[in-house]
């Protein structure tokens, strides 16, 4: 959308770090301990990218997000978002970006959704005609029509999330920051939101940075994945590269016609048995293994599971990160 910024990074951090001081122990013998939540994170995001920011709970994802949006001041390092220094220019930055925290809402709980969306017009000083046009577009894309007049407290989680997304997008931000945007949503709502985000990115070039624990979010949305572990960057690249960097086998789930001892086939190792159902980790071509199993056993059903991103990420931490501080 904004052609003048096209080549400059929209997010740029250099050696970004944040420490927290904890006070521990009984009142009289309280000790201070410094914990480093984010350590030396250097990251560049260019306009138009969709970046997934992954890591287990406590890895430093939220702290990074807070520093990028200006509600947490870095202990060390540099951070620029949309050319601004977030913690110093927080309110100015807020006018340029959209932020949705999946577990919190910016909407007015006790008023109809429409009222909160109307407020954004004044909040971001959007010309009335632009606001009306954009609201009509978003209402259409996110199917808000049926509940625009409903008080927010009566909305379902999926409806509320669509409302929050709309509120974050009415001013046409260059960057959308999403913290677990699909948490707690059902499959249909998740799919709707993912499709919407892809379209937003494709049609308007909105840059999207999201944290998630949801494999589907990452696989559908993220061309680039950044993994943070214990405060430091553990991986930055595409999803295929992440998979390749860690040997995480595919798993074949076999439902046999009747319970049987663990299946032994070349190229597959049985890792779990539960009644007639068995799990085999594959080290070889699945087609060959499947052919072999169906030849030897009565098979009721088969499912091939890709390694899910949580396991890839977990394996990455175990393998790639030095064990001691």
């Amino acid at each position, binding site marked *: 959308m904004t052609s003048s910024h096209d080549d400059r990074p929209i997010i740029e951090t250099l050696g970004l770090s944040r420490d*927290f001081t904890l006070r521990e122990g009984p009142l009289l013998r309280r000790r201070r301990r410094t914990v480093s939540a984010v350590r030396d994170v250097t990251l560049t995001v260019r306009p138009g990218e969709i970046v997934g920011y992954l890591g287990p*709970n406590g890895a430093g994802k*939220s702290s990074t997000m*807070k520093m990028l*949006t*200006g*509600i*947490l*001041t870095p202990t060390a390092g540099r951070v620029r978002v949309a050319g601004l220094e977030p*913690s110093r220019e*927080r*309110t*100015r930055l*807020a*006018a340029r970006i959209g*932020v949705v*925290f999946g*577990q*919190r*809402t*910016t909407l*007015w709980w*006790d*008023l109809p959704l429409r*009222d909160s969306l*109307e*407020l954004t017009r*004044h*909040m*971001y000083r959007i010309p009335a005609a632009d606001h009306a046009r954009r609201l009509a577009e978003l209402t259409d894309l996110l199917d808000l029509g049926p509940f625009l007049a409903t008080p927010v407290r009566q909305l379902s989680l999926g409806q509320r999330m669509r409302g929050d997304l709309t509120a974050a997008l009415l001013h046409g931000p260059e960057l959308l920051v999403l913290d677990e945007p699909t948490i707690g949503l059902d499959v249909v709502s998740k799919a709707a939101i993912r499709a919407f985000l892809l379209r937003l990115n494709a049609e308007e070039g909105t840059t999207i940075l999201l944290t998630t624990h949801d494999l589907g979010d990452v696989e559908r949305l993220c061309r680039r994945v950044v993994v943070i572990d214990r405060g430091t960057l553990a991986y930055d690249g595409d999803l295929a590269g992440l998979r390749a960097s860690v040997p995480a086998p595919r798993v074949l789930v076999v439902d046999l016609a009747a319970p049987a001892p663990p299946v032994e086939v070349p190229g597959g190792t049985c890792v779990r048995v539960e009644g007639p159902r068995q799990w085999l980790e594959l080290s070889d071509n699945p087609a060959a293994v499947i052919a072999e199993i169906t030849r030897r056993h009565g098979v009721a059903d088969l499912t091939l599971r890709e390694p899910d991103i949580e396991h890839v990420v977990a394996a990455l931490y175990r393998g790639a990160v030095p064990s001691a501080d």
Partner: protein
Amino acid sequence: MRVHRAVFARGLRRHSAYRVATLSGLLTNSVFGVINAMVLLALFAARPEINGYDARDAVTQVFVAQALLAVVAVMGPPLDLEERIRDGAVATDLLRPVPLQSWWLADDLGRAVYQLVFRAVPTFAVGALVFDLRLPDDPLRWVAVLTSFALAAVVAFGLRYLYALAGFWLTDTRGVWAVAGLLGPVAAGALLPLTLFPPAVADVLRLLPWASMVQVPAEVLLGKESLPGGTAAGGPALQVLWAAALLALGALVTSRATRRVVVQGG
């Protein structure tokens, strides 16, 4: 700004949903006002004048205090902001392109205006029906009174906003309210007119911001010469100073809080 007007209107609308609370509050204010007035009448029966107040002045101030109690919320409730700081929802407040303090000021003034119309006016009317209150004849003084009431609400916000911000450091502000909710009404002149304190104590309390919430508006209504400059205009002038000082301090503390302190929750 338009956004503040919208936030103000929403504060007003939100409180108008609590009709039962308004009615029961009105009852409480009236009953306490009557009891408080009878006690003071008994006191003034023994001494017709104390430090420039007579019985009628004292009873009038009792009903100013009862009327303003809900407007200035000197004994609570805290701002909603306080709970939002505790549970981390303040993060979404900070992500708006609007300063935190002016947003909550607009919201709280909406609440205050609702309380002024539906709690303060009826409570004062009850007082005027039951007792012989001292009311100004001069319409200009009524303007001063309304101005003073409005400024009382701003000063009250300034103080409650600072109590709320303490939550950034303390994580729990119940201790703040335990002290402020007890000493605040005394220093405001809501429990007893400050005039009844020894003059040296009263002179100090009068200059503190709490006095701007009840004592100063009451004296403006009564037209007392004990106000700064000895005129009714001196009261609002002092209130403006306190409002400005508290809001400036609030802005300063806000920027320190958001710079140094952690927003709770993931």
